[in-house]
């Protein structure tokens, strides 16, 4: 095997090499596979953690530019070129800061909450496929559902943090954050059903393999719904009710300091990143791209690039959007996204069956009809919104008129 062949399927080959090495030492196959998997899992878990160090710097730079600031600089500091090491410095600062515990905290619960938040954020990565074969820790046949189900534990990290801090703002923050995230889980789940339907599988690999045409082309409206719901799930602006530093100090983790606060911060960034990856898998074709069949390692490059784009979009939102009021946020989920997602589910189910019945089996033919159906629904939605807006405006005018008279 020459170097290029080795590099083409780098991760699988490294695993195989390590396996051979270990069996050479006389270990039984069970222990060999266990050790190889544990090493792989550690490498996989370190991945997002190091990526986050870079992404924090990146997000701060981007937001700085949006707001006409410099962002972190290395002016007079030792933060390296372009202040690239800023996040590392932050991490070191976090690690060496004192933990300040609120007096009447609920000890155990207070400590479990940040640990749970990080663990849940890291655990998602087990099912994300970085390449065709062997470049995924485990291909669960319930893939995406595993991701969504884990998010349920994250609710509890918030509720525990809020409750145990013995601070009314923390409490209120947790309560608000959970009621918001819970509301957005509905459109997210309903939009997620559409790719599952079209792929006939919940497994991440099955979803990627079904996307000869990326689902964002086939079903743009559910993709948009999923994206918005996902933005809310990870607590990014404009849905940033969890923190809302202007109203409730900083939300459920006001009382946390040092690395315990750092844990929440870390979990938030990891969640952003993994949400970008999951969106990529669901709608952007995952690791699909040119030459993947020849060199599976390219899958990692493609999926990372796509996920990076999604992350950048999230960061743009973060930098450019104002914060919505909580009632608007909840109303947007219940009175717009959820009904639209339900309608989309029905429309896609019926149209795809009709296409199937008409015997259109080519992926692009199917995609075309589904796209047209999506466009039609989008047009109707916009028209309805326009009408509602006109009516509201008329009502406002009438009221103003009445006052003047």
């Amino acid at each position: 095997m020459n170097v290029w062949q080795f590099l083409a399927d780098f991760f699988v080959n490294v695993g195989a090499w390590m396996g051979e090495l270990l069996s050479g030492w006389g270990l039984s196959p069970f222990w060999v596979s266990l050790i190889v998997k544990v090493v792989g899992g550690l490498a996989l878990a370190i991945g997002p953690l190091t990526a986050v160090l870079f992404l924090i710097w990146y997000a701060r730079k981007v937001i700085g530019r949006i707001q006409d600031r410099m962002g972190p600089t290395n002016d007079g500091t030792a933060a390296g070129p372009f202040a690239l090491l800023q996040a590392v410095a932050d991490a070191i600062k976090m690690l060496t800061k004192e933990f300040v515990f609120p007096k009447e905290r609920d000890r155990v619960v207070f400590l479990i909450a940040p640990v749970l938040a990080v663990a849940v954020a890291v655990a998602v990565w087990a099912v994300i496929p970085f390449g065709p074969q062997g470049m995924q820790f485990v291909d669960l046949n319930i893939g995406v559902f595993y991701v969504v189900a884990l998010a349920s534990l994250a609710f509890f990290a918030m509720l525990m943090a809020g409750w145990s801090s013995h601070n009314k703002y923390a409490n209120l923050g947790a309560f608000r954050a959970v009621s918001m995230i819970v509301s957005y889980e509905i459109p997210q789940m309903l939009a997620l059903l559409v790719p599952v339907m079209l792929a006939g599988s919940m497994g991440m690999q099955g979803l990627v393999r079904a996307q000869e045409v990326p689902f964002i082309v086939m079903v743009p409206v559910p993709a948009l719904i999923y994206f918005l719901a996902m933005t809310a799930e990870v607590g990014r602006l404009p849905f940033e009710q969890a923190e809302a530093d202007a109203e409730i100090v900083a939300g459920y983790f006001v009382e946390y300091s040092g690395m315990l606060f750092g844990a929440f911060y870390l979990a938030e960034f990891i969640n952003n990143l993994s949400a970008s990856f999951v969106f990529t898998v669901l709608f952007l074709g995952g690791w699909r791209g040119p030459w993947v069949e020849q060199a599976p390692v390219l899958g990692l490059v493609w999926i990372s690039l796509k996920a990076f784009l999604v992350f950048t979009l999230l960061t743009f939102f973060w930098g450019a959007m104002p914060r919505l009021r909580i009632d608007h946020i909840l109303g947007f989920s219940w009175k717009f996204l959820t009904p639209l997602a339900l309608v989309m589910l029905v429309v896609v189910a019926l149209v795809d069956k009709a296409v199937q019945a008409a015997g259109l089996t080519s992926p692009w033919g199917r995609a075309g009809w589904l796209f047209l159906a999506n466009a039609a629904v989008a047009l109707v939605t916009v028209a309805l919104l326009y009408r509602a807006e006109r009516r509201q405006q008329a009502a406002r005018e009438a009221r103003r008129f009445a006052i003047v008279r």
Partner: protein
Amino acid sequence: MITVQQVVFALFAVLTLGGAIGVVAARKLFHAALWMVLAFFGVAGLYLLLEAPFFAALQLFIYIGGIAVLTVMAIMVTRGIMKPKEPVFTYAIGAAGTALAFLVMLGLFIFKTPVWDVAAPTGEVDPNGLRALGQALVSPSAYLLPFEVASVLLLAVLVGALFIAREKE
């Protein structure tokens, strides 16, 4: 000979029962809810051990992400969380007696019935079991009726629960 599976079973059994006992014994309601989450998590682990990952995820999704969250929110809404002490065990002895009698009865029943001392069928569980489940839920010759009735039940729950809990003017 103790197998790995037995160890894992014991671990999750301890989690489940420990959580359940916590629900009973915790004085603060919020702690009881957290113990309940632990018990739910243990049951999810047992589902994984039974090779039913879909139900394990459902357990996390509906019981922990839905019911337990709702319970915690109900606690926050109702009591200003913190009257910490409350008479928890008013009828403790009678209740314990009944529960214990029930447990002994069931245990005897389980041990006296040799049918249930079976091992799991070997081999992988059908990987397309989920698809079969989906097909069964909507095929009229199988379980269509429960499926649609579930939808009506959910409708009733939605309207009823919001009607009851809404702020009355």
